[in-house]
């Protein structure tokens, strides 16, 4: 430790001065932060408005459905995480596994604990325990598939569909029963982000392929779309969507704010994704296509079996970066489409009668920032894991 310090921070007088100054500054910042978090911060504003911040005006009597959806999702995550292949020769000790899990999920667990503590209700505690149990159960089911011959016989795709069916049915059910306009808070940011990512990804792939198509018309349409959308500020597009979506959609349908937001985020993200993916495709050597041709594969099969998978893998970091900015940009929907998403509610609660003019924006915005930070950080970490996993044996 001492040796390390000496070698890395105090190699020369100049180094030493810089090290001391930086350490002092960092220490001061951390001290201030700790004081704010544990002493001066008035967290009752978060405590009182917790439900509003997390789910907006989501009806109380339907909360159980939301909870069940979370449990179903946790089960699915657990099952998917364990159905991935692991090196059977590699034995890891229990402690090491535990440590790995902690470093992977610790942040989420900590955030969950904070939220449960703030909520302070039995329901919240039960949901927390339930979530952990659901993940564990999912893992067990995933393991069972590898151990039990009957389950192992189920084709991979069918198995994935079976697994995803449960959370999907729950979520759709919740969507159908509740009124979307009552959704709010962080729930809506997450919902918009997930839906937009799921839609933008295939659209982005399509646009990237279209821009490289040998058909001039397809190329022209895709290129114009990409350049047009990338040339406009996201906020302007959102504002436009607030008034102008009727140009494209019959006014009888009168799409709600969430629909408008998802449309814009999907279109916007797809344009950027398309360029990222196109870059990935360009990085694949011509020899790959030629090898595919020499085997007699069709152009479509060469793209979907050979070049695209490699291209997508090569640009995972940039893609996830795009998804992370989409996730954070969902806060723009509040201002542009007057939607009660997390940031908007975070601002609004500081103007409640009880808290007006008391400068509680730090608490409120701090909490908002924490939620987004944890979400983004987890996405970034998981993308690195994915990259490592898909990069098996690649230089």
């Amino acid at each position, binding site marked *: 430790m001492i040796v390390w310090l000496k070698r890395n921070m105090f190699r020369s007088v100049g180094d030493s001065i810089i090290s001391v100054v930086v350490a002092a500054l960092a220490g001061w910042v951390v001290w201030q932060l700790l004081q704010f978090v544990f002493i001066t911060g008035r967290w009752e504003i978060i405590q009182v408005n917790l439900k509003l911040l997390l789910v907006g005006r989501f009806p109380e009597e339907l909360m159980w459905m939301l909870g069940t959806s979370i449990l179903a999702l946790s089960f699915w995550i657990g099952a998917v995480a364990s159905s991935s292949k692991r090196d059977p020769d590699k034995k890891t000790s229990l402690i090491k596994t535990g440590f790995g899990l902690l470093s992977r999920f610790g942040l989420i667990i900590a955030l969950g604990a904070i939220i449960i503590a703030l909520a302070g209700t039995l329901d919240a505690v039960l949901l927390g325990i339930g979530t952990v149990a659901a993940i564990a159960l999912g893992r067990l089911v995933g393991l069972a598939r590898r151990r039990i011959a009957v389950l192992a016989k189920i084709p991979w795709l069918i198995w994935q569909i079976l697994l995803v069916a449960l959370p999907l049915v729950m979520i759709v059910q919740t969507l159908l029963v509740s009124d979307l306009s009552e959704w709010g808070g962080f729930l809506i940011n997450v919902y918009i982000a997930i839906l937009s990512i799921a839609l933008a990804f295939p659209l982005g792939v399509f646009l990237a392929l279209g821009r490289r198509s040998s058909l001039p018309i397809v190329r022209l349409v895709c290129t114009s779309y990409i350049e047009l959308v990338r040339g406009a500020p996201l906020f302007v597009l959102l504002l436009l969507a607030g008034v102008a979506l009727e140009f494209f959609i019959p006014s009888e349908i009168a799409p709600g704010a969430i629909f408008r937001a998802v449309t814009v985020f999907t279109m916007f993200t797809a344009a950027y994704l398309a360029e990222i993916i196109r870059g990935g495709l360009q990085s694949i050597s011509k020899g*790959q296509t030629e*090898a595919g041709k020499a085997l007699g594969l069709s152009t479509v099969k060469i793209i979907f079996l050979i070049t695209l998978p*490699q291209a997508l893998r090569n640009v995972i970091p940039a893609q996830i970066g795009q998804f992370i900015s989409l996730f954070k940009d969902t806060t723009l929907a509040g201002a542009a489409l007057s939607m009660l998403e997390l940031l908007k509610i975070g601002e609004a609660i500081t103007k409640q009668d009880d808290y007006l003019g008391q400068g509680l924006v730090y608490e409120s915005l701090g909490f908002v920032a924490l939620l987004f930070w944890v979400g983004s950080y987890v996405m970034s970490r998981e993308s690195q894991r994915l990259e490592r996993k898909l990069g098996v044996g690649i230089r």
Partner: protein
Amino acid sequence: MTERAYTDATQIKGGDSAEPIVTMEHVVKRFKDFTALKDINFRVGRQEVVVVIGPSGSGKSTMIRCINMLEEHDEGRIVVDGTELTRDVRNISEIRKETGMVFQGFNLFPHLTILSNISLGPRQVRNMPKAEAEALARSLLERVQIPEQADKFPAQLSGGQQQRVAIARALAMKPKVMLFDEPTSALDPEMINEVLDVIKELARDGMSMIVVTHEMGFAREVADRVVFMADGEIVEVGTPEQIFDNPKEARTKKFLSQII
């Protein structure tokens, strides 16, 4: 020139009566205003091994790439196993099923295991069931002497091993003729022989092949005929002895004196 190429073609294995596996007649290939192949006339007999030599830029790669339509020829006729090459998509895929190609840079698919690299073609092009395709892949790995590498990824193999996988991948399509474009040029010297040995083995088994190479010892050993190309033309064709020991053309003599 044309005349001689044809007379030589009558010496092909199997005699006059046998239908050649590859026929090229008056083939011309241009890149923009540059003519890479000028009136190529040539036949490869069944089970014949033809080695193509020549200086860099002489059109060796272009010629064999025309045979499996990685390049489209501009004039003349190319017939592979009785099927003439046209621009029709179905025709292209038929031809590519009959020809296997091995590239200088291996061009294995880095995201697939060795086994999947080899079984991909049979499964996707010949609609072979997975189990059968994998069994075939394993038997081919056996044949190129690296059965133990089946579950690795290309980047985990040495260059020589990768090239042998590439050969197995091409063989998995059960081609009627194999095209090799400088299969050992990207390899470290100590790995060249393990690849050449596999190719020799194929030659012994009676595979028709066209091999572009700079390995003259190998050419002498396995070639039924050697083709010398320069400036987009076939300058001289003959048995290895004729070409290496007794070249007739000035350009052949010059080339051989430079590389030896």
